[in-house]
């Protein structure tokens, strides 16, 4: 492995460890005793003590952290207080939906965003450009739950094209993916537009014109290939927002994914589940960004990690 990649990989590991500390701290410092929550209002002092001991919550926090991480490295994120399943089982159960949701919304957001951005750049300073940028602004600023409700009202309630909620295969993921992808589309459209405008001015585009290339070739084979490079970083970063957005979207559409799992785990003070999920999602985001970095060499021949 090249030294750059090694450095980048090390940073990634350190970041994940840092995140784990942060997650652990947050969870253990927020007020509210999970044990008394589990046992209900009529729990006795003794039964609380006993359960705390059984769950290991009576140990010093540092010991708890290291023991947790020791197990986490071996793929054991603990067992849910509530369901009795291991957290890993919970994640594996729920991940297909969130993964699909993330994938579809990234695809939707990228295609729509890049298309709109390209059109806006090619038609710079026209009505079309202004309309496209207005659309992007709406996509970025409209809250997810609002878009979700709007889409549900229109497509599910009025037109009955899609199911209102729940998971029943690909079909039921279309509206949630659009909901989640719109913000991504907006950011990508903006970035694509500015990146395209920058590239269109370059000397090599003039060269391509001088060779006799037509508009389509200029835009898609000469400009976009260069303009897309910064956009790809943005797409990688969007993955983090998607994870956050999934929490709202899955809840509104009642999809049994990681997002809705974390909401229910928080409301039941299911510490191992919350902790494991946060750690898992953070690690995913960090890893995706690392992979995007690797992809760069494929897109931009000037970058070589050697």
């Amino acid at each position: 492995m090249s030294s750059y990649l090694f450095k980048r990989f090390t940073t990634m590991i350190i970041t994940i460890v840092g995140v784990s500390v942060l997650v652990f701290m947050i969870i253990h410092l927020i007020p509210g005793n999970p044990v008394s929550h589990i046992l209900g209002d009529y729990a006795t002092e003794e039964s609380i003590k006993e359960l705390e001991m059984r769950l290991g919550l009576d140990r010093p926090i540092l010991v708890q952290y290291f023991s947790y991480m020791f197990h986490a490295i071996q793929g054991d994120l603990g067992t849910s207080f509530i369901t009795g399943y291991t957290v890993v089982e919970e994640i594996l159960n729920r991940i297909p939906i969130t993964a699909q949701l993330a994938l579809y919304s990234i695809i939707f957001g990228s295609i729509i965003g890049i298309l709109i951005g390209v059109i806006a750049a090619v038609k710079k300073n026209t009505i079309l450009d202004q309309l496209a940028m207005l659309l992007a602004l709406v996509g970025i600023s409209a809250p997810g739950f609002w878009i979700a409700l709007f889409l549900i009202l229109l497509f599910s309630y009025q037109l009955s094209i899609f199911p209102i909620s729940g998971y029943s295969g690909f079909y039921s993921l279309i509206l949630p993916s659009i909901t989640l992808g719109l913000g991504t589309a907006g950011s990508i459209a903006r970035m694509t537009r500015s990146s395209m405008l920058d590239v269109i001015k370059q000397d090599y585009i003039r060269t391509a014109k001088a060779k006799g290339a037509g508009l389509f070739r200029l835009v898609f084979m000469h400009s976009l290939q260069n303009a897309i490079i910064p956009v790809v970083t943005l797409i990688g970063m969007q993955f983090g927002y998607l994870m956050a957005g999934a929490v709202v979207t899955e809840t509104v559409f009642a999809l049994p994914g990681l997002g809705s799992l974390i909401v229910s785990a928080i409301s039941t003070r299911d510490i191992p589940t919350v902790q494991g999920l946060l750690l898992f999602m953070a690690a995913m985001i960090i890893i995706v960004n690392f992979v995007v970095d690797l992809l760069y060499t494929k897109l931009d021949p000037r970058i070589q990690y050697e």
Partner: protein
Amino acid sequence: MTIELLKVENMNISFKDDESGTTSAVKDLSFYINEGETVGLVGESGCGKSVTALSLMRLIEKNSSFIEGTIELEGEDINLFSEKKMRSIRGNKISMIFQEPMTSLNPVHKIGKQIGEVLHLHALANKINCKEKTIEILKKVGIPRAESIVDEYPHQLSGGMRQRIMIAMAMACNPKLLIADEPTTALDVTIQAQILDLMKMLQEEYNTAILLITHDLGVISEMADRVIVMYYGQIVEEADVRTLFKNPKHPYTIGLLNSVPNIDSENEGRLIPIEGNVPNLGMIKSGCPFRSRCQHAYVKCHEKNPPLFKRDSQFVRCWLYEEEGVQA
């Protein structure tokens, strides 16, 4: 026998300005280029050389500019051509190389692909023989290890090598006219000479006409058959290269010649720069645009822009020659 290849008549190029008006960048330009001939276009920076060159191929932004007049290529006015028809001219009958070899090639495409593209665009190669033809062209412009360079990216090559690639690309379709806009300005002196030699060699082989744009009179004296001197968007002098260097007429041309090293100059090797700068577009409302920098300027120069006066085959736009010549 000389055959006229390109004939530009009364070309005006103007740009839309911030207000709703237009600013004229090139005024009433008429010139011709014969087959196989090298015409030098000289003038200081900002004289309108690049704008002229780009307009010949209609490469200036069409939303913010106007090109008037006729641009006849082999008898056809290409200024009337549709965009589609124009595309079939670009890179094919007229091709162009630019000042900046470092930025003129697409950084994300391999060299082979970039040269292959122009062959493909003008249907001179298909998928099967494209690579082979590309290598052939690279060899013709004297590129070492042509077989491996087709798989390299521009950033892996030096400036001189990239300019060779640009030339290979420009010559790929065997064009009638090569427009070279300051092709050597960005390069080292030794590389400059190589690039000029290469252009000369290819010209001889293919009988390509060259419109060579430069502010370097040394390059002109070495390469050009005929020279057009431009100032403030106008032709101020035109003559064959010997006449121009031996007997320059326009005070601007004389000023240009005095400002470059020249063995048999009267100033015993001293260089005298022309005072002042090219005025910004739209600054000169009447009179000769050079008058503020001209030692010989008199009343008439302030009143009226001189026409081109012709004497023998030399043209000069200066009132000093009103008596001697005939108005062209």
